[in-house]
C-alpha cells in the first residue's frame, strides 16, 4: 500500500533531484505528479491552523482536568502527525526509513514512565521531610 504510493511520489522526488537518472530510468517527467500535492499542502496547512486554534481554545475557555489534558494531547498528536506525514513526506518514504525514525522516539515513553515514578518518590520524600505540599 505504502510502497505503491512511494513509487508515485517518494521516488519521483528522488528522481526529480537527479534529472539524468530520471531520463535513463524512463520515469515520467516531473510535471505529472506535482499538480496534486500543492492542493494537499494547502489543505494540511488549513488543518494545522484549525487544530492550533482548537488547542488555543482549550486554554481560552479554561477547560480543566482530564478533558483538558486529553484534548491537548489529541490536538498535539494530530498536528505532529500531519507535519511528519505530509510536510516531511514521511507518508511516501520507504518503510525502512519510516520505522528507523518513528520507532525510537516511542521508546522515550519508557523513560517517561521511569521519571514519573522517580518524581512521585521525590515528592513523597520532600513532603515527608519538609512537610506541607499540595
Amino acid at each position, binding site marked *: 500500500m505504502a510502497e505503491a504510493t512511494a513509487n508515485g511520489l517518494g521516488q519521483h522526488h528522488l528522481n526529480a533531484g537527479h534529472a539524468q537518472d530520471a531520463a535513463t530510468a524512463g520515469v515520467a517527467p516531473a510535471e505529472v505528479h506535482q499538480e496534486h500535492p500543492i492542493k494537499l499542502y494547502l489543505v494540511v496547512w488549513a488543518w494545522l491552523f484549525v487544530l492550533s486554534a482548537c488547542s488555543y481554545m482549550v486554554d481560552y475557555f479554561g477547560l480543566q482536568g482530564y478533558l483538558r489534558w486529553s484534548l491537548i494531547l489529541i490536538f498535539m498528536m494530530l498536528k505532529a502527525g500531519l507535519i511528519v506525514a505530509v510536510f516531511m513526506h514521511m507518508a511516501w518514504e520507504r518503510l525502512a526509513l519510516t520505522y*528507523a525514525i518513528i520507532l525510537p522516539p516511542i521508546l522515550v515513553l519508557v523513560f517517561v514512565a521511569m521519571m514519573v515514578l522517580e518524581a512521585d518518590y521525590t515528592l513523597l520524600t520532600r513532603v515527608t521531610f519538609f512537610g506541607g505540599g499540595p
Partner: protein
Amino acid sequence: MAETTLTHIGQTEPRPAGWQGIAADWSSDQRAFKNVSWGKAMMWIFLLSDTFIFGCFLLSYMTARMSTRVPWPNPSEVFALHIGGSNVPLILIAIMTFVLISSSGTMAMAVNFGYRRDRRKTAILMLLTALLGATFVGMQAFEWTKLITEGVRPWGNPWGAAQFGSTFFMITGFHGTHVTIGVIFLIIVARKVWRGDYDTGRPGFFTSRKGHYESVEIMGLYWHFVDLVWVFIFAFFYLW
C-alpha cells in the same frame, strides 16, 4: 527501476578481507534506505538525535514540575497580554504558533516549487519562510524581555515553583536557537536557488560538491522539525 539497480550494486561487489573489508563495509555501497539519498537519511538521523535532546528537556521539565511541593505558576496567566482593557490568556504564544505554522506552509510550497525548477518562486517562498522565522524569534525576544522585567529568573520567580524559570529559559532558548540557525541556513539555500547553483552545478563553498534541488527538501525537513518541536512545547509547557 532505480531500486533494483541500487540493490544489485550492493550484492555483487567483492569484499576485501580483514580490516580493509570492515572499512569497505562501513564506508560505501551499504544502503539500508535504498531510494533515500544520503543527505536526506543523514538529516533524518540528525533530527532523531535532536528529538532525544528535546525529549530530555521536556522530561526534566515534567520531573521538576511533578516533584515540587510549591505550586507551579499558571502559564495561562503568566503569558497573558493586556489588550484593550482585559487580559487575553496566552495570546502572544498563540500568535507565535500561527506564525511558525505559516512558515512551515511556505516552506512546503518552496520544496514543491523547487522540484518544478521554479527558481524565483522557490527563493521567494524560502525568504518568506525565513522572514516568518525571524518574526517568531523577535516575538520570543519580546516574551523573554517581558518575563525578565517581571522578575522571572532561572533560580526563582514571583508566582511559585523556582524551576519554572530554569525550564522555561532552557526549553524556549534552545528552540529559539534552532529557529535562528534555521533562518540563517534558509537564507543561504535561498541565495543558492536564486543564483541557479542547482541548475549549473556550481560547487558548494563548504563541501565543494555539486548541489541539487533536494537540498531544498532537506532544508525543509529541518524547518518542519523546528515547527514540530514547537507543537510539543506549546502543548506541554504552555497549555498543560
